[in-house]
């Protein structure tokens, strides 16, 4: 099934990951599936981009991680938002909305 692919803008991936983890903690594959679901399949995140981003965000102190059993009893590494991560999500969301608004105004003008 051919899918409309959108290119990820620089910085968008971080925001999407933070958003995907806003409701609950997830493992890497879960984050990937959640992003596909949130964007109705517009974005598919490749492992080669996802995992470096997860590790980078963790090193920045926005995510924390722990090992836990998955839904079908496999051990997996679960990521969750930290307090600074949640604050970052708020800031980046606000910023993104300002840009999106400005862009759509510009394109409508």
């Amino acid at each position, binding site marked *: 099934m051919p899918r409309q692919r959108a290119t990820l803008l620089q910085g968008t991936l971080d925001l999407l990951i933070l958003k995907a983890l806003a409701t609950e903690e997830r493992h890497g594959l879960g984050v990937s599936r959640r992003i596909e679901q949130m964007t109705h399949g517009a974005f598919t995140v490749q*492992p*080669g981009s996802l*995992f*470096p981003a997860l590790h980078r965000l963790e*090193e920045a102190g926005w995510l924390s991680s722990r090992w836990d059993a998955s839904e079908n009893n*496999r051990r997996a590494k679960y990521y969750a938002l930290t307090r600074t991560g949640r604050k970052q999500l708020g800031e980046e969301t606000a910023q993104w909305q300002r840009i999106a608004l400005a862009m759509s105004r510009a394109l409508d003008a």
Partner: protein
Amino acid sequence: MFGRLTRLWRNLVHRDRVERELDDEMRAIEALLVDEHRQAGMPAAEAVRRARLALAGVEPVKERVRDVRAGAEIETVTNDVRYAVRLLAANPGFTLVAVLSLGLGIGANSAMFAVANALVWRALPVTSPEELHLVRIDSRLPVPQRFSAPLVDDLRRGLPDPHVLAAMSRVTRARLRLDGGEPEAAAVQLVSADYFQVFGVSASTGRLLTPDDASAIGAAPVAVISHAFWRRRLASQPDVVGRELVVNGVRLTVVGVAAEGFAGAWLESPVDAWVPTTMQADLHYAQNFSAAADAEPDRPWTPQAGIQWLDVVIRTAAPAGREAAALNAAFRPHLLEAATRIEDETERRLAIDRRLALQPFAHGASNLRERFRAPMFVLMAMTLVLLSIACANTANLLLARATSRQREMAMRLSLGASRGRVVRQLLTESLILGTLAAALGLVLAPIASELLVRMTVGVQSGPLPFSVAVDWRVLVYTALVSLATSALFGVAPAWHATDVALADALRASARNIPRGGRGRLSRALVVLQVALSLLLVVAAGLFLRSLQNLQAAPLGLETTHVVSASINPVLGGYQPEEWMPLYERLVDAAEQLPGVRSASIAMCGLMANCRSSVGGLTISGYQSQPGEEVMLQENYVGPKYFDTVGMTLVEGRRFTERDRTHPESVAIINEAAARRYFANRSPIGQRYGEDRPTVEIVGVVRDARVNTVREAAVPMAFYPIEPAIVAGTLELRTSGDPRAVVAAIRKTISQTEPRLPVDRVSILADQADTTLRQDRLIARLTALLGGMALALACLGLYGILSYRVRQRTAELGIRFALGASRPAVLLAVVRESLGLVLAGLALGVPLALGASRLASALLYEVSPAHPWTLASAVIVLLTVGAVAGAAPAWRAAHVDPMTALRNE
């Protein structure tokens, strides 16, 4: 911040745990994916396959995760370094050749730089050296650049602040006695009282000179000694103030020690003791000076406006500011006053048209700097060329190695390493090689530069006149050179090594690795090496030939059978009226010696850096051009001088006993003077003089090079020695072995004239040779550099040829099996070697011709395009090509077909 540091710590120190965790995470994800596919109803095998496909290779993902982790950079670098060191240690032969050749190249460069640094770039160790300026006389005529003491006083009085101006004499050798010990030589400089204040030098012990020290002639027998002298001769004794130095027989009291590191402003003549200028007459101090007609050199110089002997230094931040204007305002009356005595209108205008200008003096003065500047830059250029050759050599070695590592590279690239990452790894290896070579270079540089300075100034042992130590400038230069070197020899091989068609290289056996670029590049490098080597060999040839020409130059003197002894009656304490009898006694005593045919006294020795000239002459029948300085070099000689030193009389007569009663009225000139001032007429019987023509020319001698071997004879006049002349040399003509006479004359003088200091006794040929010191140095150094270049070129050629032979072993085996003749194969390899050399020569010959033109000023009677030198250099390189090709050719010709084919 803290969090980041703990993560850095975790990543770097507990790397194993971090790696394991990453591995676990990737495995877990793969398992989750498989589960997902299985739930969607896929067969197990297909589910695993799809999962792996989705992850697109676990290793690249892991590699990218590693790259974003804290400390990733450090980790990569340490890994690279560790890996590189292991590789270099595994190939000790390669590492040794690379580090040695590059280290020698870098060492040579750093040594040359250290000398250039000390000579040209390092400032005097004083406060704000950039404010120091030397006062020079700007004129359209060549004028003596020295000042009389009264003129210095007038200049000082004209300044807004008189305390910025100081005067100093040259640095001369004096006879020093310490604590009644044996007399020794010491470097003494006479300075004005404010010398140290103007230079901004403080005292490390005691005091410096004060205006009281210069209040009257002979008033203050005091001396300030240099810190180095204090340490060397007085063992840094703390009670040095008040001690006595006996300089030229005069007792001086040490009042202080100058700051450490300061040894005056003459780079190659470090001062041991500074004495007030007012002590000049008491010390019998003498140096070169320019004298006006009313000068009386036997009386104290400080009150005489007619004796110009001082250099003037001024401290000012603005060399074109009010100080310069004030100096010129004070100078002008002197010019106008001097001009009133000149009758000719043009001459007078030229005499007035002089201005004082300030010349930066931050680096002090140095004869060596002026003399050695051009050769130094030539040598620096040559060491850079040598380093380029070493670079090309190392690049070639690296290329050869890169080829044998191509499969490793292909493997690493296919396992997910990016090309940049692998190139970085290879460059790390180059940098480590460069660093090792730089370390070796820094060990060699101080040794080499000290040797270089010793050979240049002719000091075998004892302290160097100036330090050529490795300072921060030399360190920075070495670092830059080795960095540039590493980049030069490292980048191309690294790029080539990683340029592999993956599948090809993996599939290929060791034999048929794709060639293409690498072969071309390494051949180009060898051609470049040959071309640059030719450049150095040609340079060495030219300088050697130039030295040969100098050594064979006709001096117009008998060199092998003349012995000179330099004497100093003034320092011996002989009074002027004792001089003539002393001269007679010396000549008599010398002629009594067995093996001595004749002896003569003279004011100036030969090849002895003694030059006295008189200008402003009037010559009967000669019309001078406006601005032309009618001058003659002069010497005062004893009756048998010409026969003793081997100058031939070509016209007229020698001096006779009768001339001694009227010594000032006769002269013998040389051919150069006859040619210049008496063209188309006989000089015999003609007259000349300073104001009126009073001196009659009675003879003409053949031209002789009396100053240096290099300097052609200048117009010259000889006068009979007279009572007022200080003889500086005793010349002896020997019939037997001159060496025996050298020892005998010293002994005789010390017995008959124990007071008379005898400085140097030498055979004229040896003395002449010392004036070729610089030429010999350059010839030897260039020969050394040329030899090293040849060795490297030979190594480079050998390397590429044996590599090519190894590569073609199988092919050769088949050829032999099919009946190819061994001599034909041998010839083919030698032909390839010569082909590379010929290509290098085609590039090198125009290069050498162009470059040697730049050095033509240093050559003596050798054209830069000297055909024989060029031809010999070409033959040398062709020989090198044949030699380098011989071993690989022999190996190629003795390939055993069966062994070669079995390897297939």
